[in-house]
C-alpha cells in the first residue's frame, strides 16, 4: 500500500470533500491503482494534461470496448439492462476515437464556437432577469432549484427547438441518466428507463427535423445523417447527449460558483467593485476560477489503448483509468495557493473542461451562462446569505452536484 486512503470513491468523505480525498491521493500516490474497483486513479495536473493530449494512447471508446462489468457492481439480473445502456452510451460522439471522433465532432463544432455562441447572450441575460425577478418576489430562493437548474434547461431547450413547457419532463428524464455516475446497485433500471423514455421523446422530433430542417442543433445533427456521418440512432442518442451535457454541467457551475462566492465574501466584494480595468474582464476570470476551484465535472474515464508508463507505474493495455479534474485543478505544482478562491487569477489553465481533442464542446456556452449568472447576482444583490450549514452532494463520481442551496438576498 502506497497510501492509507480508503479506495471507496463513493464513500462519504470522497463525495463531501473530494479536494481532501483526491488531494491526499495526489500527494501520496498520484498514479494510484484503486484495488477496490480495479482502475487507475490519476490526480496530478501534469499527468492529466499529458493523458488528454495523448488521445491515441488513452481511448475514449470506453463503452464500446469495455465488456467488463461496471463498477461498483450492479444486480446480476440487471446485466442485460447494462448491455443496452452500454450500447447507448457507445454511440455518443465523445465515446469515439479519431478519425471517427473528428468527423462526428465537426458536424457540431461550428455551432458551438465562441463566435456563434455570442448570439445567445441576450437570450441568456433575459432568462436570468426573469428568474431573479421571480425570486425577488419571494425574497429567498434555492439557487439549485430556482436559478441554476431552470436557466441552462431553458437555454438548451431553446437551442434544441423544444418547447419550454417540456423542461420538467426533460429534467426528470435527465435525472435518471445521471445514475450513470452513481454507485447504487440498482442504478441500471432508472438509467435504462431514462434512456428509452428520452429516445421515445426525441425520435419524432428528429424525424421532423430531417424532413424540415430548422435553426436548431437537432437539425445540425440531422444534417450529419444526410452527410452519412451519423446514423439515425446516433442522431437521437447524440441529441440526448447534448441535452444532458448542455445543462447538467452548467447547473453545477452556477451552484458551486455561487457557493464559493458566499464562502469568500472578499471575492464577492471584489466582483461587486469591478472597475472594468483588466483584460480579460474580471467576470471572465471569476468564471474561470469557479471552474477551477469547484468544477462541475470531477472525473473522466478512459481505457488504455496500449501499455504506457506514467509516474513510474506501468499502465497496461485495456486497463481502466479515471482522471480527476478535482485533483488536477488544485495541484500546487501548477497553481499558486491552489486552495484559495481568487477570482483575479490569470492565466488560469484549469482543466474544468478537460483538454486536448475532447475538450468540452459546450465550454463556450457554459462560460457564457456562468459569466452572465454571476454578473447578474453581483449587480443585483448587496449580499447572498447562506440559509444552510449543511451541504449535501449527489453521490456521483462524475458530477460535483449539490442537492440544494437555499439563500436569502439583500
Amino acid at each position, binding site marked *: 500500500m502506497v497510501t492509507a486512503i480508503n479506495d471507496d470513491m463513493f464513500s462519504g468523505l470522497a463525495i463531501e470533500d473530494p479536494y481532501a480525498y483526491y488531494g491526499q491521493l495526489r500527494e501520496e500516490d498520484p498514479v494510484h491503482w484503486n484495488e477496490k474497483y480495479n482502475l487507475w486513479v490519476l490526480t496530478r495536473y501534469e499527468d492529466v494534461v499529458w493523458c*488528454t*493530449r*495523448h488521445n491515441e494512447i488513452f481511448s475514449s471508446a470506453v463503452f464500446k470496448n469495455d465488456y467488463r462489468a461496471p463498477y461498483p457492481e450492479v444486480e446480476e439480473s440487471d446485466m442485460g439492462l447494462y448491455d443496452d445502456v452500454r450500447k447507448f452510451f457507445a454511440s455518443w460522439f465523445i465515446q469515439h476515437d479519431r478519425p471517427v471522433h*473528428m468527423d462526428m465532432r465537426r458536424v457540431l*463544432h*461550428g455551432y*458551438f*464556437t*465562441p*463566435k456563434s455562441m455570442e448570439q445567445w447572450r441576450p437570450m441568456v441575460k433575459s432568462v436570468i432577469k426573469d428568474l431573479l425577478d421571480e425570486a425577488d418576489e419571494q425574497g429567498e430562493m434555492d439557487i439549485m432549484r430556482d436559478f441554476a437548474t431552470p436557466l441552462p434547461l431553458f437555454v438548451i431547450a431553446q437551442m434544441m427547438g423544444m418547447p419550454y413547457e417540456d423542461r420538467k419532463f426533460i429534467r426528470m428524464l435527465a435525472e435518471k441518466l445521471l445514475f450513470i455516475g452513481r454507485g447504487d446497485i440498482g442504478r441500471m433500471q432508472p438509467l435504462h428507463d431514462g434512456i428509452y423514455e428520452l429516445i421515445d421523446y426525441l425520435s419524432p422530433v428528429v424525424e421532423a427535423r430531417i424532413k424540415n430542417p430548422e435553426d436548431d442543433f437537432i437539425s445540425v445533427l440531422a444534417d450529419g445523417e444526410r452527410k452519412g456521418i451519423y446514423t439515425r440512432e446516433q442522431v437521437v442518442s447524440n441529441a440526448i447527449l447534448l441535452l444532458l451535457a448542455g445543462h447538467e454541467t452548467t447547473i453545477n457551475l452556477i451552484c458551486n460558483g455561487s457557493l464559493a462566492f458566499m464562502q469568500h465574501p472578499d471575492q464577492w466584494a471584489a466582483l461587486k467593485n469591478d472597475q472594468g480595468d483588466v483584460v480579460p474582464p474580471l467576470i471572465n476570470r471569476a468564471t474561470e476560477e469557479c471552474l477551477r476551484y469547484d468544477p462541475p465535472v470531477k472525473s473522466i474515464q478512459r481505457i488504455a489503448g496500449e501499455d504506457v508508463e506514467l509516474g513510474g507505474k506501468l499502465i497496461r493495455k485495456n486497463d481502466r483509468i479515471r482522471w480527476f479534474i478535482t485533483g488536477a485543478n488544485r495541484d500546487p505544482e501548477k497553481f499558486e495557493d491552489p486552495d484559495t478562491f481568487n477570482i483575479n487569477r490569470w*492565466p488560469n*489553465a484549469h482543466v474544468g*473542461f*478537460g*483538454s*486536448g*481533442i475532447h*475538450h*468540452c*464542446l459546450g*465550454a*463556450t456556452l457554459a462560460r457564457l451562462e456562468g459569466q452572465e449568472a454571476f454578473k447578474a447576482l453581483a449587480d443585483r444583490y448587496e449580499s447572498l446569505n447562506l440559509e444552510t450549514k449543511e451541504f449535501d452532494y449527489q453521490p456521483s463520481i462524475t458530477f460535483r452536484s449539490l442537492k440544494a442551496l437555499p439563500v436569502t438576498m439583500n
Partner: protein
Amino acid sequence: MAGKLQVTIDLNVCVGNAMCPHIAGKSFDLNDDRQGRVIDPDGDTRENVLEAAEACPVSAIMVVDAESGEQLFP
C-alpha cells in the same frame, strides 16, 4: 491577391483541441506539448487560416493582416 498574415497562438489559453492543424494543416501543427503551433502563416489559404481561428474553442488564435495591421480575428 490578399497580403501576408501574422498569426499568433496564446499558449496560456490553447487547450490542444487540434482543430487548427486539421483545418489549415499547411499553417498549423502541434508543438511537443501538443498545443497549436504556427508553422507558416501564409502556408494555407487565408480562408482556411481564418476558419481555423474561428473554430478554436478558446479563441487562442489571433490573425492580423501583416501589411495593414488590421486584426482579422478575433
